[in-house]
């Protein structure tokens, strides 16, 4: 495409220390260490906190429902709320999200009804919401494949003169797939308005990061595509939000893609059917529980006198409301129509599928 400018970019390597704006203890990091980013305003931090707390409550509820057998499977994002919510709040409604199975809380936060959202994991239908309505694609299972969709969508928008950006989440494990490379590279060459959020939660099911890459950071890859890369403390919602906001503006402005690695930790098992005791110790998990993104931001807000009892009550109530709605949605036994199996395979009707549908119908009537 002619859209790509022919000058070579000058991008440096990301700082080897993950960028953080609020430290583990909930204190603002001194400005000189902020790599040029500003702490978002308190109102924004409060909203980040609020949405993370609600997401945590909801995620815990879904895990519980899964244990009770109400869902077939559920990959929890517990501990990764700063990455997920920091990203989503930096998006506008017009931006598109291309998520993975891990990112249900991001989708919930983007406003997708939990009943629709969880259809796939309950096992009713592969995907339950209208991607176009929520500008949020299906949750991709084949790893890294969705990153290319994000680049394609963004490029089409750019060709069409629409000033939006797309975001895609990629796991540390998925970063090893060829598609991640191709997505980074196409985005670089086409200067696609896409922000890649590499959620480095340090595990791909059981496989630790050290078996996935020998690089210092995954963000170090960015320079190989002429793309700016950031290495961010993924348990610091303020930092994720600040970096994502800048990257999204850059993309919408037409200045191209960004790779943002968020270093975090998968606190829960990979899914309910995983047994993490086989590959990591409770101590490891405890260390990372100690770096909890929600508690960290809470401490900061408390230190700023920015979190009233009324705020807390409202957040708790909203979390409980979401949890209750989800419990209710998941306890209903949906009536599924097996004839739907044939309805959406093609847009254009196929005689052979009509035959097969009639066959199944006849079997039901037998």
């Amino acid at each position: 495409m002619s859209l790509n400018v022919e000058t070579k970019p000058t991008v440096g390597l990301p700082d080897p220390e993950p960028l953080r704006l609020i430290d583990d203890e909930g204190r603002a990091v001194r400005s000189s260490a902020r790599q040029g980013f500003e702490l978002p305003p308190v109102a924004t931090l409060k909203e980040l906190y609020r949405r993370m707390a609600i997401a945590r409550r909801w995620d815990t509820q879904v895990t519980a429902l899964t244990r009770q057998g109400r869902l077939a499977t559920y990959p929890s994002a517990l501990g990764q709320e700063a990455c997920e919510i920091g990203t989503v709040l930096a998006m506008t409604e017009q931006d598109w999200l291309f998520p993975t199975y891990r990112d249900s809380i991001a989708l919930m936060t983007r406003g997708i009804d939990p009943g629709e959202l969880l259809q796939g994991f309950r096992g009713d239908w592969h995907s339950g919401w209208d991607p176009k309505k929520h500008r949020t694609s299906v949750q991709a299972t084949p790893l890294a494949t969705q990153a290319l969709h994000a680049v394609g969508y963004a490029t089409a928008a750019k060709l069409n003169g629409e000033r939006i950006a797309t975001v895609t989440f990629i796991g540390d494990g998925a970063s090893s797939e060829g598609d991640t490379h191709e997505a980074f590279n196409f985005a670089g060459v086409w200067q696609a308005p896409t922000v890649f959020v590499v959620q480095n939660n340090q595990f791909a099911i059981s496989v630790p990061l050290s078996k996935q890459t020998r690089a210092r950071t995954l963000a170090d890859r960015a320079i190989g595509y002429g793309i700016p890369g950031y290495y961010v403390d993924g348990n610091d919602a303020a930092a994720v939000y600040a970096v994502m906001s800048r990257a999204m503006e850059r993309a919408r402005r037409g200045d191209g893609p960004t790779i943002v690695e968020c270093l975090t930790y998968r606190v829960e098992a990979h899914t309910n059917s995983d047994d993490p005791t086989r590959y990591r110790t409770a101590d490891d998990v405890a260390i990372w529980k100690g770096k909890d993104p929600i508690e960290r931001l809470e401490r900061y807000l408390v230190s700023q006198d920015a979190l009233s009892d009324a705020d807390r009550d409202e957040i708790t109530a909203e979390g409980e409301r979401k949890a209750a709605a989800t419990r209710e949605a998941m306890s209903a036994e949906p009536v599924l129509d097996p004839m739907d199996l044939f309805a959406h395979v093609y847009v254009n009707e196929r005689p052979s599928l009509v035959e097969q549908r009639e066959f199944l119908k006849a079997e039901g009537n037998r």
Partner: protein
Amino acid sequence: MTTTEAKPITMAAALNAALRDAIAEDPTVVVYGEDVGPLGGVFRVTDGLQAEFGENRVWDSPLAESGIVGTAVGMAMYGMRPVVEMQFDAFSYPAFEQIVSHVAKMHNRTKGRVALPMVIRIPASGGIGGVEHHSDSSEAYWTHTPGLTVVMPSNPADAYSLMREAIRSDDPVIFMEPKSRYWSKQEVALPVTTEPIGTAKVVREGTDVTLIAYGPTVATALETAEMAEAEELSIEVIDLRSLSPFDDATVGASVRKTSRAAVIHEAAQFGGFGAEVAARVTEREFYHLAAPILRITGFDIPYPSPKLEEYYLPTPERILNALATWEWELP
């Protein structure tokens, strides 16, 4: 719109005209892939399109097939109608996951909310003396994948018409272009509309045997029919055109008439598309069949090197020999 008096044009030129007309008519149509820009594709099917429509409609992408198809999925979600090229069958394999797990499934998994109107062009099959990996026939991989539409024209008129329809279709289409027929000519006035996707065509009538062919083997089947006339064997030839959906009605009617059929393709026989043809026609027309449906196809070996491909490809002689093995007097 390309409007011409009837004149001899090649399949490559017909495809080129179809792409040109589609791009001109619909601003959402974009064409990209490897070497489709200034070069016009290694088979010149996209010749002149970038010069005419600019780099925002027709462009060279990085060399990565999964990337090409994966980004096309995103573009189609946006509302574009991307037409992308895989340079040869075997070079579509890096895109296999994107095609099978996404292109084929998106409309279904979203309960019809997201359609993917996209066309994946694949210069297909052999017969051109190509070195290793340049002559695969990949149709069986795609036709077995629910959610895909797979077509393969055998002549310029169908090439034009099917391409226009494929681009207009809201379903993703694997568009296989028989390389060995790119330079074959036919008298056609453009634009031309032939039978729609899903329709096979009786291209020669006959009474004794039905030869079922598609893409490069249609010419072989017609030649066979010609030769058979001398032996007073009347051969009907069907050009499938659309492999998926499959036109059971046209094929069934012919087989009920002739009672004997053979399917001809270049791909290896084992698990090839001919197996589906034989199985489904037998299922449906068993009591009309006087003999088993034969498959005259490539052998179950990797496609041979250029100097040996003549031994591999189905020839009229091989087809006639095969027909001679039937017990014509039985049952």
